[in-house]
């Protein structure tokens, strides 16, 4: 070795994205690599920045709901819920019980649909081409139900400040039960196909590890945090809607690697289906809209509301100046905050695992960039 001429080595820069099929949107990261190892990563976001928060200041409260639909566009209802709840808290309005139950049912079904999308596309990311066929078939059932109930497959604009746009169709309960039954079978099928598949384990076990301490400090929430073994779930920690009356477990991972994050989401599908069944049983009859004015004009004040989105803890900081338009709307998008942990997870990983690690965060760029 000593006879070799002295050579300098420099880290190589490798650009990924923004137009890259594995980044699930317009996300760009610059990897600095030493051979096969990632030495550092610099994420670049903002390609989809539409200024949703700024736009919200110029729309009436009812119209802002449509902007929230467009943040995390694979779990629209969960996003609508958090804004609607923030406005309700500011106005001191409580939605009727029936509306709260229906909102919970729809949100949990939306969570399953979102997780199914993750499981399918993540399997694609790590090279399993089949599961996406199964998960999309199952997700379709939820989409069809949503179309039946809200009139739209995405961008539902169904929740209102103080309740719902309208009551659900008469065959809602039957259809939900049949969808839940089929979904459970479908999730089990995907579970058997993928979870303990040896190739899948080899691609995801021990990859992209983040410990609990770092995960908390980076502000990770949702399955990314629970994958690291921290059982923090807004539905348990700060119960909202009717979650207090539902029995469910919070699945947690052990090592905080990609497989654990996948596992948490998979288990959450089962828990959500359990919740839907319980909520459906408890749903009372009654009105779905709180009585009172149809135009929301909250008193002066501010509120920070948060809820458990499929991606994590989504927060809304809402400031009202007493007019019919919000003075300031600030969103804490879980995907954005989860991306902060990317650098920790990628340090020292193989370049081949970069896509696996990014995919395991399950980001939605509409929400990251707002």
């Amino acid at each position, binding site marked *: 070795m000593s006879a070799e001429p002295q050579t300098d080595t420099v880290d190589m820069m490798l650009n990924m994205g923004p137009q890259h099929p594995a980044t699930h949107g317009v996300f760009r990261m610059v990897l600095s690599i030493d051979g096969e190892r990632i030495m550092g990563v610099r994420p670049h976001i903002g390609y989809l920045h539409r200024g949703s928060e700024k736009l919200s200041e110029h729309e009436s409260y009812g119209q802002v709901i449509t902007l929230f639909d467009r943040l995390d566009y694979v779990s629209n209802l969960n996003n609508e819920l958090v804004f609607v709840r923030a406005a309700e808290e500011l106005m001191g309005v409580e939605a009727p019980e029936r509306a709260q139950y229906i909102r919970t049912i729809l949100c949990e079904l939306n969570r399953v649909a979102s997780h199914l999308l993750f499981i399918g596309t993540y399997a694609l990311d790590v090279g399993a081409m089949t599961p996406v066929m199964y998960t999309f078939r199952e997700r379709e059932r939820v989409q069809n139900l949503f179309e039946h109930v809200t009139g739209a497959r995405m961008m539902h604009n169904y929740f209102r400040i103080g309740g719902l746009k309208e009551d659900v169709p008469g065959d809602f309960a039957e259809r939900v039960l049949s969808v839940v039954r089929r979904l459970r079978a479908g999730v089990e099928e995907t579970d058997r196909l993928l979870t*303990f598949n040896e190739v899948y384990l080899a691609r995801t076990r021990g990859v992209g590890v983040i410990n609990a301490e770092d995960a908390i400090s980076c502000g990770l929430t949702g399955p990314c945090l629970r994958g690291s073994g921290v059982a923090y779930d807004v539905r348990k920690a700060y119960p909202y809607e009717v979650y207090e009356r539902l029995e469910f477990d919070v699945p947690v991972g052990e090592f905080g690697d990609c497989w654990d994050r996948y596992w948490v989401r998979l288990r959450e599908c089962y828990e959500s289906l359990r919740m839907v069944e319980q909520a459906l049983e408890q749903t009372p009859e009654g009105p779905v809209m709180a009585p009172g004015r149809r135009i929301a004009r909250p008193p002066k004040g501010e509120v920070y509301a948060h809820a458990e989105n499929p991606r994590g803890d989504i927060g809304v900081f809402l400031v009202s100046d007493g007019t019919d338009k919000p003075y300031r709307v600030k969103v804490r998008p879980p995907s954005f905050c989860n991306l902060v942990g990317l650098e920790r997870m990628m340090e020292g990983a193989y370049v081949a695992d970069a896509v696996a690690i990014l995919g395991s965060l399950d980001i939605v760029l509409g929400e990251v960039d707002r």
Partner: protein
Amino acid sequence: MSEEQRPPGEEAAAQSAQPAPRPHRGPPIETADETLSERGEATAKRLAAALGADAVAAGGRGETPWARVEVGALARVLRRCRDDDALRMDMLHYVERIELDYVLASVAHNRKAIIKVDLPADAPSAPTATRLWQAAAWYEREAHDLFGVAFEGNDDLAPLLLFEGFEGRPGLKSFPLHEYEEY
């Protein structure tokens, strides 16, 4: 990371031989019988005890009390919130507008609180929180991006949501919504 500890092949074999699901652990809810507003009041007391004279105003509704502090005291107040045993706010939820609002959350104690600080509108500046919470890095970049808040001690305030070379602070009320032309 360490493959010696957990060889993937062996583990896969062990797990497929015994497909029983792993045990679920419930979350560490410290206060099960308290209502959320009671928990908020208790948090407010702990917050007041920890901040002492640094809090110039306090209030709050529901489970999230807030306390307003001076810019000069911000750095030590934030550190105290994180390290104080009764608070242990280990997660930073968000940094907010020219009135900066630090929404803090404690995973261990299951509590939330907001620290508020007013900044001058012409040259907003505050000490960085990146040394306390890693998450602050991106929040501060965003606040700098959209509102022009300078964070002393954070030397990476590159544009995050906007592109390089963008002029103006679109988050501010003075920035036009419709009259602005991008190209």
